[in-house]
């Protein structure tokens, strides 16, 4: 007993893309001085955390939105909840739903690509991928990381997922394969500390306690006054961002409405028509 939503037709003419690159700074919001906040996502891994409804998905969608409008960029999406990253599913080379087996396979593929890219870099006497190399940037975005590391699958699968992800996070940085992950509370029982500490950029959305904020940003920041527990529950999208500069900055993540997200996704699909992979990958969705 299923209904099928048919795919809509595509237009004959295809416009030129937005002309963005993943090597461009990614706009994610503004800071307290009203200045725009940009992140250099390609060479850094970002961990966004905070309580539900804090605005993590807003930040993640900003990065996805930038990613899909970029030339030479592939997306690999993990979203057990389906709806947060679902709008980008047709633009992603792999969209992993609540299926940890598929997630593990995807991570293995990514690791093989990463290893091959390093061999290529070695052969070309290089240590880091640059914008002029013509290589695609493979952006891996994981929403609700805890679902894969604690809920779905068996203990062994969860550990394997965490281990593979740790490999990708540690390897991906210099070969154009950054990882953006979001979760509610990245404590050691949810995500291994060894994995958490590999994320260079941290965004702490509202937390209920000083301790939770410290877990996200790192020990000691709450004592210095940088605690995400002082963010008002009604102020969605406000966060402390620990990125360049070494000090956490209070930011407000830009917000994309559902309409904006689907408009961007539609436009990106339109411009990507010649290069995008066709057919919906297996998300592990139960019929």
């Amino acid at each position, binding site marked *: *007993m*299923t209904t099928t939503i048919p795919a809509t037709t595509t237009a004959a003419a295809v416009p030129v893309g937005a002309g963005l690159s993943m090597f461009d700074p990614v706009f994610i919001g503004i800071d*307290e001085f009203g200045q725009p906040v940009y992140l250099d996502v390609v060479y850094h891994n970002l961990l966004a955390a905070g309580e539900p409804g804090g605005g993590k998905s807003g930040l993640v969608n900003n990065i996805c939105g930038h990613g899909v409008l970029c030339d030479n960029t592939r997306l690999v999406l993990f979203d057990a909840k389906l709806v947060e990253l679902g709008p980008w*599913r047709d633009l992603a080379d792999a969209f992993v739903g609540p299926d940890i087996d598929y997630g593990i396979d995807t991570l293995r593929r990514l690791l093989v690509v990463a290893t091959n890219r390093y061999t290529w870099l070695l052969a070309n006497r290089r240590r880091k991928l640059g914008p002029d190399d013509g290589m695609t940037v493979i952006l891996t975005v994981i929403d609700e990381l805890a679902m894969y590391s604690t809920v779905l699958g068996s203990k062994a699968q969860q550990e394997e997922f965490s281990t593979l992800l740790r490999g990708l996070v540690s390897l991906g940085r210099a070969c154009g394969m950054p990882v953006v992950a979001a979760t509610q509370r990245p404590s050691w029982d949810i995500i291994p500390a060894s994995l958490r500490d590999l994320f260079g950029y941290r965004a702490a959305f509202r937390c209920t306690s000083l301790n939770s904020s410290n877990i996200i940003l790192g020990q000691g920041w709450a004592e210095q*006054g940088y605690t995400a527990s002082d963010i008002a529950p009604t102020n969605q999208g406000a966060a402390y961002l620990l990125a360049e500069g070494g000090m956490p900055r209070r930011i407000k993540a830009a917000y994309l409405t559902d309409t904006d997200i689907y408009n961007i996704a539609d436009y990106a699909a339109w411009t990507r028509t010649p290069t995008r992979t066709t057919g919906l990958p297996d998300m592990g969705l139960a019929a």
Partner: protein
Amino acid sequence: MSKSSPRRRFGGKSTGTVTVIEARVHRSSARNAKVAFVLTAIIVGGLAAVVATSYLHPIVALLLGGLIGVTTGAFVWLLVRVWPVIRLLWWWSTEILLAVVLLTGWVQLANHTSTLVTLVVVAVLVGVPAGIPKLRRLVIAWSWCLIVRHRLRVCFAQFIIASQSGSLPLILWATPTPVGERVWVYLRPGLSAKDLEGRLDKIAVTCHASTVLIERASEGNAAYVRFDIKRREVLNARVNSPLVDVIDPSAPASASPLTVPTALDLPDVEVPTVTLPTQAKPAGKKSAPTTTANGSKPAASSADADDDVSDWI
């Protein structure tokens, strides 16, 4: 400024002296002044005598050197002695200057124009900044900068114990920020940014602020710090993404066919058919239990489904 004697606080006869400088600072100043006098007198006097011997008889040169030394020493003594007052004047210099300018301006205006013109000029000078929101906010923001420097000094003087001599950190300039003010401070020996971190809540209270943050203002000098005083939340409004501007919203909708389950309510899903998406058994768990909690043997075919449900409850 309190009266020198606490006994006479309530209407008693005053001796006419008012404590401008605290007793501790006063004593320290007296001692410093004495030391400064002796050192200056000896060094300057000695040097002057040595130079003077080239031109004068040694005894005359010695006398001249002594005279120059004592005179310079007296000058330095006076300077050190009144230094606390000079410092106090320096702290309030902006306010004193503002008051002088305003009062002079008012008196000059009142003397040289008719009452009506005076009132019109004052109304324009006060009304324009008060009426234009941007100007008003600017004036208020800079006024807070003046206030907050004094409040910070109160913090250092009242509850942040610094050096034995009681010297306070140098409170440098302050500038308004969208959330409050930013003040640069040069710490004296005996204090560090770490010491101040534990007192940020008290500093916030003293500055009538919401929160205060402190960070180093210089990579190479730990004494140079910056206070960020925050009195309002500015990140309340929604921030729009510029990505929306680079797309054409009339792009044709693109969505791959999606199979949507129709069992969208609990009664639609029968008990034995629960199959959570690829929810496997946890590894640490033993294989299918031989008996359930009530002791009955479960049906072999439903063991997996039972495990899945219990994981989710």
